[in-house]
Structures are given as C-alpha cells and as structure tokens.
C-alpha cells in the first residue's frame, strides 16, 4: 500500500510527464477502439442485414434441399413443422416459405429475380422487409408482388403495374403468370433491392406448382449468440423427421467467408496499427523512465533495493497505463458512439460495398466488449515491457552511476567534427539542431522511430491494397472485360438484344486500325435463365467468336474439363460453380431461356461441352459461353449483328483515352454507339479501389494521430530534458523565436531520419512480400467472392499513391514540434536553469 501511495505520489509530482504518458496511451487506445469497432460494424451489418431482411437466423428444409436446391425436395404443409419449431425453446418466431427463381419481364425489359413466397402474417416476425417499403404497401393476397427499388427501376415498374414471371415449376414445366406490383422496398443493399422479390405464399405455390408444400421454414432466435444451441435443439426435436436444420452460417457460407476475409484484412490492419500504437507508448515510457536515472540513484543511495525500484516503476507504469487505457476508452467510445448513432457515409462507393453481402452505404461501428479487453491487455503489457528494461537497467547501476545518469547521458554526446562557420543565423541554428540530434542517439532514435513505424506501416498497408487491386484489375480485364468495349448506347445498363451493332465486321476492322489496339473480338450478350429439370438460375449468356476471343481474353486458359467454345459448333461452356449449383456434369443438357429482340421468349437445350474455373465464385456462377452464331439465333439477332466489340490494348492505362477518342469519332457517333474503358465496365473494381482509399484515409488518420502524439510527446520529453540548457540560451540573449527555430529544425532532422528508416524498413518489407506473396489461402473461399482475386496477394508499391500521405506524415512529424518549441520559448530562464 505504501508503495502504491509512493507511485501515485510520483505521478502527481511529475504532472507534465504523467500527462504526456497518459495522452500517448489514451490516443493509442482510442484509435484502436474506433478502428476495431468500425471493422466489427461492417461485419455485424453484413450479418444483421442478410439475416434480418431475407434469410432469418435458421431454416428447416427437407433433407438434401440445401445441397441440391431442387424444388421437389420439399416440406409438406400437413407436417405442421412451423408450429413445432415455434414451440422450441429459444425460437422467437417461424414462417413458412416457397423460394425459387424467375425471369420477370415487362414490355421489352426483363430481369432474373429470386422469388420468396411468404406468409405475410408471420414473415414480418422473422424478417423486416415489410418495414422497408418506400412506395405502395406490403403483400396481402392474390397475385401480388413486392420488388426492390433497383429491380423496379430496371423493369420500369411502379405500384399498380404488372409483371410477367416465367419460372421453371417444381414438375419441370415452364410456369408463367401475371403479378401486380403492390409495393417497392429499399434496404440500401443492392443484392436485395435489385434481385429479391416477395409474393404471397399461396401465389408462389401456384406459380411453382407447389401446392401443399414449402421449400423451407425460416425462424428467428431470441438470442443471436445462442444460435448454435437453438439449431441443435431444433435438430433434436425434429430428429425423427427427414429434415435438415441450418443456422445462417451454414446457409450463407459466402457471408461467413466474406466476414472471415474482412476479419483477416482487419487483423492485418489492426496488427499494424497495434505496432504503431505500441511504438508510441514504448517511446514515451522509455523516455520517461530514462529521464529518472538521478532519482533512482538517490533512492538507491538511501538504501532502496534495486528490486524495489523496478517494482515501483512497474507499479507506476501499471497505474499510468491503466489510467491511460480508461481515458482512451472514454475517447474511443465517445468517437465510436457518435458514429454508431450517425453512421459513416460510404454511399458514394455503393457498388464496392455491394461486393460485401448485406452492406448498405452507411456503416455503423459496433463496440464489442472482448475487443476492449484485448486492447487493454496488450496496451498494459506493452507499457510494462517498455518500462521493465530501463528500470531493470537502472536497478543494476550503482547509486553513484545512477545519480550521474545525466552526466552519462552527456558523455554519450558524439564528437562532432564539423564547425559552426556560417554567417547566417538560420544555418547556425540548423547546425545546432543537427548536433542535438547526434548528441543523444538513443533519444533521437526513439523520437524518429515513431515516424519510422508510422511510415513503414503505411507503406506496407498501401502496398498490400495496391497489390490486391492490381491483381483484381489484371485478372478481371483478362478474364472477361478486355480493356475497351464498343456497344450501342444504353447496353451497359440494359442487356437487351435490341441494343446491337449492325455491322460488326467493318467496325471491327476500323477499330483495329488504332495503333493502341492489339486485338478485337465480337460478342453477343443475353440475359438468360439456365435450368436443369429441378432447378433454374439466372446467368449472362456470352456468344463469342473463339479464335478472335482468344486474342482478347484468356478464358480458354481456365478450362477444367471438356473443351473451349468451338466455332460453328453448338454447346455451352459453364463455370464450375454453376455446374455444382445445378448438379450438372460435362455432356449434360441444360435449358437456356432468353428474351429475344422484340420481347419474345426463346429456349434451347444445349449440352455442356466444357467447364471452366477462374477461382472467382461470382464469375464462375454468372457467365455461360457459347458460339456467337448460336447466341445470335437464340437472341433473334441477324447475321453480322453483335452486342459488343471487345478490344485488347497494348497498354491498359490507355483505355480511358482511347474510349474518349472513339466517343468523339463519327465511326461510333453516327451509329449511336459508345466506347467504354475497363474503368466504366468494371465499376465494382474501380469503386473497391476508391473505397479502399477512403478506408485507408481513415486508417491513416488514426496512424497520423498516434504518430503525431508520439512524436510530440518525445519532443516534449526531449525539451524537458534540456530545460537548463535552453534556460542558459535564453539568459545569454537568445530570442524565443530563435529557440523555437532550433527545436523545429531538430524535429525536421528527426522526421527526415524517421522517414529514411521508415522507407527502408517499409520498402524492404514490401519488396520481400512482393516476391514471396502474402498467402491468404486459409480464407480463399472468401476471396472467391471478389472478382479477379486469387489466394496469394503480392504487395506493390505505387509511388503516385504513397508520396502525398508520406509527405503529410513528414510535415505532421515536424509541425507537432510547434508545441514543445513554443513551450521552450516561454521558459522562465531563472526557473529553467535552477530546476531543469
């Protein structure tokens, strides 16, 4: 107790040192709390929205439905499972559903939708789509349909309009019916607003020929943290029935993978920020313990055992770190609390957010208690480690050595051979500052290391992001988009076969005359439903001229089974993921249904002649390839007509420039055509890059604050340590502004040193990882959801991206010295000389 009083007493007496250390710890903790809450907020939002709007917490299916997705694997109404599941402890509500896919069309617009037949009385207890209606009303009865705001826009429908839905019914037949749009909902999530539709249960049962059956019973649990327990209980309860009970993680593995991916990236970021924060705390504590050599010497001279000194320092550090942690919690929780209520607006990057299922444009940070505990343990441990070594060293010295610490420090001043010879006072003060940097290398290294750590961390994080996106762009352009595409105006938003290029041969020849164009290939693009007898899925059917396509994209290199598209031959090439979803194998026939030019529906059975795998689930499910002539016939296009011409350029960077030139050329404008660079064709990729920049500015600002406080603290400590000398300089007639200048010069040199060390450390790390790659194979499943990404990321340092933030970090490291410089200039010379 006496030691604790002494520790508190020391902290109270040295108020300034205590305040500096507290500030250092508090800012670090606050930054970590906010960043982690931001990342957790994204994850929580993805889960809450996907389970809250559509899925529910758990589902009960007839056994085998989840894997095969065939409608005839169904639950019978007469089994009364809805009531039985409702009665299980921990289940809050249940609702029966019929789910399937449909091609919805109105006049010449069509779109594939995921249809949910729901019981409007009970669905609202499980999900909350009914509370997101922005126009019209919720479902009541009959042939009514509720669509998302994006689907309504694409199909050009409003409440009161009719939609025709074409489906493959449970008996394999094609079913169709008219539905009145009664309401339009908006969740802010593109995947839901664009592709989910609800209709009354009875209407869905009728449309899919599914009377007396459900595909699933969805349920909400009372406590989300006890989901596994409830899933187990429901499973036990229904063990005699031939059903499967699945929680949302099993139902949406891609969401789990995306959360895992996001967590993995978050852990990299958090780890780096932890290192920066720890460095800031270590610096401050190291400086404050090193400063106390004389005090420890006096204590030892008075008979204090060295072990007691170590104990006292550790006690003081624990108190300081603990208080700093609490202050940091207040700071972090206040900032996080504000954004938890008001949200962080990322709506400008909505397409990029859409790659993460369940995310809307506004992110609400979420605080998780266990994160706060982890931060507390790490921060206190780091502080104790930082204090232990110098305290132990001080304890090992003899009292006289320890009391002479200041002299020992001065003795470390390095012999400096250059002389102050200038007539310019500015240069003289610069020279004095430079000597100050060299006079105490340990102090200088500690100060410079704050900047160095910040910069190295930033370089690594940015290089990681750039490597990630470079791979995404490279693979995406190689697999499908090419570098520039020419198409009829409007075809980028509406893949209608009516929007076409009439004479592709001449146009293609003229396009290839541009020196940047290496190759060109024609394509026919059609929205389609692809179906086997039990299941249908929406896809994009791509008709290609294989020989020309090979020169533009490299899909032929991704074939897993069978052969690539052959010119003039029938058959389709599908992705492995689609094959798995449909349970289809090489040689199987699938029915492809498209809306033709003019609006009629056309179907054709095509054999699978090849299966490809790019590694991206998104791509491997979405695109089906066939010969261009077969696609023309199916889509009702004439000979020579194509949807697009795809160009490969000698340099990807020239795509926007070429698109601009083409868009002003009569070659395109005369026929109402437009050219688009890959940046417009792959908005998801571009927006992910942009969003990552926003993300990085957020991270960088936290790193900035931590580094700035760290540098400022060490500069304040350094000024405190030299107070008598500064007092003498003032006494001799040095003006306050001249003293400020000397300290700013010192900060400038330390920042340069920090930048050099940070650049070398960060650069070497990036070069090393750029060669070996960062292995993310443990989360490869999550990466498959992102276009163009594989499981090994090679960081790339792009100078254009890092110079400005590096410069800002440098300026920040210099400018934070303004405060200690100002303090130094306001010193009272008498007090400064007398007390130090």
């Amino acid at each position, binding site marked *: 107790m006496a030691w604790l009083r002494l520790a508190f007493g020391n902290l109270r007496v040295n108020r300034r040192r205590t305040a500096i250390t507290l500030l250092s710890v508090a800012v670090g903790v606050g930054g970590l709390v906010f960043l982690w809450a931001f990342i957790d907020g994204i994850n929580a939002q993805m889960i809450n929205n996907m389970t809250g709007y559509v899925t529910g917490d758990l589902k009960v299916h007839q056994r085998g439905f989840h894997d095969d997705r065939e409608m005839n694997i169904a639950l019978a109404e007469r089994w009364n499972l809805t009531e039985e599941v409702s009665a299980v402890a921990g289940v809050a509500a249940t609702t029966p559903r019929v789910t399937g896919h449909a091609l919805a069309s109105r006049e010449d617009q069509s779109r594939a939708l995921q249809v949910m037949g729901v019981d409007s009385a009970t669905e609202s207890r499980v999900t909350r789509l009914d509370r997101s209606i922005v126009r019209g009303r919720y479902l009541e009865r009959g042939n009514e349909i509720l669509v998302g705001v994006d689907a309504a826009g694409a199909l050009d429908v409003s409440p009161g309009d009719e939609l025709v839905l074409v489906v493959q019914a449970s008996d394999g037949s094609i079913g169709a019916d008219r539905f009145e749009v009664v309401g339009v909902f908006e969740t802010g999530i593109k995947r839901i607003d664009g592709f989910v539709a609800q209709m009354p249960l009875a209407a869905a049962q009728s449309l899919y020929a599914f009377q007396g059956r459900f595909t699933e019973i969805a349920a909400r649990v009372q406590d989300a943290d006890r989901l596994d327990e409830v899933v187990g209980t429901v499973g036990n309860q229904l063990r005699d029935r031939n059903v499967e009970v699945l929680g949302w993680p099993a139902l949406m593995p891609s969401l789990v993978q995306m959360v895992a991916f996001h967590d993995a990236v978050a852990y990299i970021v958090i780890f780096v920020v932890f290192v920066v924060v720890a460095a800031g705390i270590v610096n401050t504590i190291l400086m404050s313990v090193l400063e106390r050599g004389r005090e420890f010497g006096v204590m030892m001279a008075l008979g204090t055992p060295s072990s007691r000194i170590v104990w006292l320092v550790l006690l003081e550090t624990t108190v300081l770190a603990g208080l700093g942690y609490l202050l940091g919690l207040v700071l972090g929780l206040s900032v996080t609390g504000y954004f938890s209520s008001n949200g962080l607006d990322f709506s400008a990057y909505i397409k990029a957010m859409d790659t993460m299922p369940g995310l809307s444009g506004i992110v609400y940070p979420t605080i998780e208690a266990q994160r706060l505990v982890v931060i507390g343990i790490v921060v206190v441990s780091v502080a104790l480690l930082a204090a232990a070594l110098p305290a132990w060293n001080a304890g090992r010295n003899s009292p006289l050595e320890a009391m002479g610490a200041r002299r020992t420090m001065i003795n470390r*001043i390095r012999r400096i051979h250059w002389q102050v010879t200038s007539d310019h006072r500015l240069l*003289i003060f610069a020279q004095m500052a430079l000597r100050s940097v060299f006079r105490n290398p340990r102090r200088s290294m500690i100060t410079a290391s704050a900047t160095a750590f910040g910069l190295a961390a930033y370089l690594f994080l940015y290089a990681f992001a750039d490597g990630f996106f470079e791979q995404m762009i490279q693979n995406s352009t190689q697999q499908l988009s090419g570098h520039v595409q020419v198409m009829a105006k409007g075809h980028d938003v509406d893949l209608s076969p009516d929007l076409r290029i009439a004479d592709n041969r001449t146009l293609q020849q003229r396009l290839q005359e541009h020196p940047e164009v290496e190759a060109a290939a024609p394509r026919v693009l059609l929205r389609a439903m692809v179906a086997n007898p039990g299941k249908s899925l929406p896809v994009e059917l791509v008709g290609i001229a294989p020989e020309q396509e090979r020169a533009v994209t490299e899909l032929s290199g991704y074939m897993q089974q069978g052969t690539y598209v052959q010119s003039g031959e029938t058959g389709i090439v599908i992705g492995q993921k689609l094959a798995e979803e449909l349970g289809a194998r090489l040689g199987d026939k699938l029915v492809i249904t498209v809306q033709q030019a003019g609006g009629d529906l056309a179907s054709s059975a095509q054999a699978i002649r090849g299966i490809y795998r790019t590694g991206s689930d998104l791509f491997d499910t979405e695109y089906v390839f066939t010969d261009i002539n077969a696609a023309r016939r199916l889509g009702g296009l004439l000979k020579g007509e194509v949807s697009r011409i795809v160009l490969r350029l000698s340099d990807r960077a020239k795509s926007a420039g070429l698109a601009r030139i083409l868009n002003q050329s009569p070659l395109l404008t005369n026929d109402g055509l437009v050219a688009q660079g890959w940046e417009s064709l792959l908005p998801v990729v571009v927006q992910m890059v942009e969003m990552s920049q926003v993300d990085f500015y957020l991270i960088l600002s936290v790193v900035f604050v931590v580094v700035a406080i760290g540098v400022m603290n060490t500069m304040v400590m350094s000024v405190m340590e030299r107070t008598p000398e500064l007092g003498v300089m003032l006494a*001799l007639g040095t003006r306050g502004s001249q003293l400020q200048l000397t300290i700013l010069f010192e900060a400038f040199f330390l920042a340069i040193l920090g930048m050099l060390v940070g650049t070398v450390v960060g650069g070497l790390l990036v070069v090393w990882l750029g060669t070996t790659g960062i292995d993310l194979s443990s989360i490869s499943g999550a990466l498959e959801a992102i276009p163009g990404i594989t499981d090994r990321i090679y960081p790339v340092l792009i100078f254009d991206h890092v110079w400005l933030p590096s410069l800002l970090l440098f300026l920040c490291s210099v400018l934070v010295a303004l405060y200690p410089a100002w303090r130094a200039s306001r010193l009272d010379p008498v007090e400064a000389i007398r007390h130090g």
Partner: protein
Amino acid sequence: MSIVNVEKVSRIYRQDSIAVKALDEVSVAIEAGEFTTLVGPSGSGKTTLLNQIGALDEPDSGRIQVAGEEITGLSRKKRTLLRLWKVGFVFQEYNLIGVLSAQENVEYVLMLRGVPFRERRAEARRILVEVGLQGLERRLPHELSGGQQQRVAVARAIVSKPAIVLADEPTANLDSTTGAALLDLMRKLNAEHGITFVFSTHDPMVMERARRVIHLRDGRVEREEIRS
C-alpha cells in the same frame, strides 16, 4: 558613474500560499569597473539580486537601471535584448551549451549579435588564449575539466564586452586552487579591460579578492565593506 542602480527593490516569491520575501527594499549602486561581491548565507537574496540586475527576473517593486537604461517594466523581448547587449553571465554549474565546442560557446553571443564569422572567431580565439585555454578551442564541454569549463564560461561572458558581468557562485563547484586561479583571471580581466564584475558567493577566497563586499541577510543589505 553608476553602471547599476538598484533602488528599493523588493521581490516576493510565493510557495504554497506562503509569501517569502527574497529582497526587501534593497538599494545598491555599482560603479563602472568595480569588482563587487554579494555575500550572505543561503536565502539571503544574493542570487535573486543578481537575477534582477541581469534582467532575468522582475521586481515586485522598486527600480533598476543598468548602463543607464531603466529595466523594470521592460517587455520580455526587450529584456532579452538587454541581456544580449549589456550583460554577461557566469553560472555556478558552468552551463555551457553541450553541442557547441569551447570556441563556439564563446562565439555564441557574438553570433547572436550578428558579428561576422571571421571576426567572431578571431575574437573568441583571442579571449580563449587570454583565459589560458589555447589548444582546447575545439573541445566539447564534456571533454573539459570543471575549471576549464568555467574559464570558457568567463570567456563567453566577457567576449562581447558587456557593461557588466554577473557571476553566481562561480567557484562553488571548483577546488580551491582552480577557484583561486579563476578569480585571479577575472580580476586580471577587470583590471586590464575595466569590465565590471558582480559575484555572489559564500567563498572567503572570493571575498578576499573583492574590492567591495556587500553583505546581505534576509533580503536586506546588512552592511558594506570597501577594501583597498
């Protein structure tokens, strides 16, 4: 002619709400070229009076003139300029600037005054020779003994030919031989250059060498002695 004129100067410090009268209506006049010592026990007000004369501190009441200039009530900036142009300091703990060599420490004040490099270097060398530090010009403070450091401090104080040099316990950290040698040096400089020196000390050796000794006690001038 008085180079320093202190009239009824009082200075009160407050420590934890207790007022301590460091100077109590002190009046002292120091003539140009004097070699004066302020003596008295600890807490008698010696250092406080030196700080007042050197414009390092401000009195609560009274007036102080240095080299004909009224210094009470001057702004911080003007007091800095006064110290630069009219006062030289020698401190008990030498207080050289750690990153500057002996020569550069001496040059420092000249540099602040804007003296060109060649001129200030020559002057600093000349003074260092005069104080017996020839050959040690490029040594850093920590490479010099205590006596040598204090000689550098004296050289730094006189190099700019100030109106007055204030030395606060200059021999307190030196052994008696070194202290005596330093005092002899200052006395020689006083005699040869006519520089006014004012010391604070308890050291009898310093008192012996002073021509005028002012005894302080409890912040007041107790008595004065003039020695031949």
